[in-house]
């Protein structure tokens, strides 16, 4: 099975009270998860925060005030020129849809996981609007590393 986690299934269980109308097309989720646009400034803060977005543990990003960025995964600089918002959204929501072996987790998945600690059980890594903020920020990264 190539898709262990179909996008529709991943999104079907999103936060109660959050309107999710995500539809995958090709390698993208074109529409906002919440129907609202993301805020790139908030997204930058989430990406920079090692306890929230966690992004800098594996990736580097053009956030010079944060020293000690990871190099397990490709730099985020230039992400906005390489992908559309929809493509970025899919890569945050369900990266294994594109590469089943990637170490990057789904940021929206909240079930079907193993031994999740009680404090995190039933919660996604980021809430849908936070993902929108991160996607909006990544889309602004036009400079290549």
């Amino acid at each position, binding site marked *: 099975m190539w898709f262990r986690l179909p996008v529709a299934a991943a999104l079907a269980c999103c936060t109660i009270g959050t309107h999710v109308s995500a539809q995958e097309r090709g390698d993208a989720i074109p529409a906002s998860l919440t129907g609202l646009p993301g805020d790139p400034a908030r997204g930058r803060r989430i990406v920079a925060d090692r306890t929230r977005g966690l992004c800098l543990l594996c990736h580097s990003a053009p956030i010079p005030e944060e020293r000690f960025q*990871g190099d397990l995964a490709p730099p985020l600089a230039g992400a906005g020129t390489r992908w559309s918002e929809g493509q970025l959204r899919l890569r945050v929501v369900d990266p294994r849809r594109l590469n089943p072996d990637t170490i990057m987790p789904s940021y929206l998945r909240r079930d079907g996981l193993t031994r999740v600690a009680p404090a995190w059980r039933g919660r996604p890594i980021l809430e849908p609007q936070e993902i929108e903020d991160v996607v909006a920020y990544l889309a602004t990264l036009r400079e290549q590393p």
Partner: protein
Amino acid sequence: MRLPGAAALTLLLASPLGAEIRPDERRSDFHQMSPETRAMQTDDTANPGMLAVLDGEALWRAKAGPAGRSCADCHGDARITMRGVAARYPAWNAARGTPVGLAGQIDICRADRQGISAWPAESRERLAVTAYVAHQSRGMPISPPGDPEMAAARERGGRLFTARMGQLDLACAACHDDNWGKRLGGTPIPQAHPVGYPIYRLEWQAVGSLQRRLRNCLSGVRAEPFPYDAPELIELEAFLMQRAAGLPIETPAVRP
């Protein structure tokens, strides 16, 4: 690694799960540390783990329990009788029908020979005696025992090592087999060979066990850690010791 923009599908996605570490590439995490931290380990007069070893030496000789018997009363001079022992643990305990770690064996000795209860996990005393015994194997290669029962335990441990766990859905192998040497945040990812336990970890500001470290990692991926002395932790240890076979024991190692 920098990928060209054209490799659209793989960009943003890290490299796929790879294979085990090649035998000729296996090495202790000691070599990834700064010269200062390495010096802290190699100079016994500067290594804070030696305080635990000294504590353990005193406990080895201390008479305890209704029979007033010490470890030394049965085992004699640990420098001789305990040499190489830590390099062979975890080992199969036929009487109990289970694999037992070094600290678990000390618990068994206390119960069967001294008639007293086990020290709690991560207690100063249990870590100290374990460190003292393990220290007697310093410099000796890790040599896991060949019992078929241990092979089964190691296999279960190996499956845990490659199983994705926690909210971050990561397997131990994703970092320590496939991405060692790269940087997670600012920290180089080690190959994770348990060569120096109990270790003095600067983050803990204290000596701790491999089980404490494994529980840290599980918390790190936001998984529920296995309880101390759970069979899963012993099996993981047995797997890791096999994976590190041949590397010399460093106890008490110092790690950041």
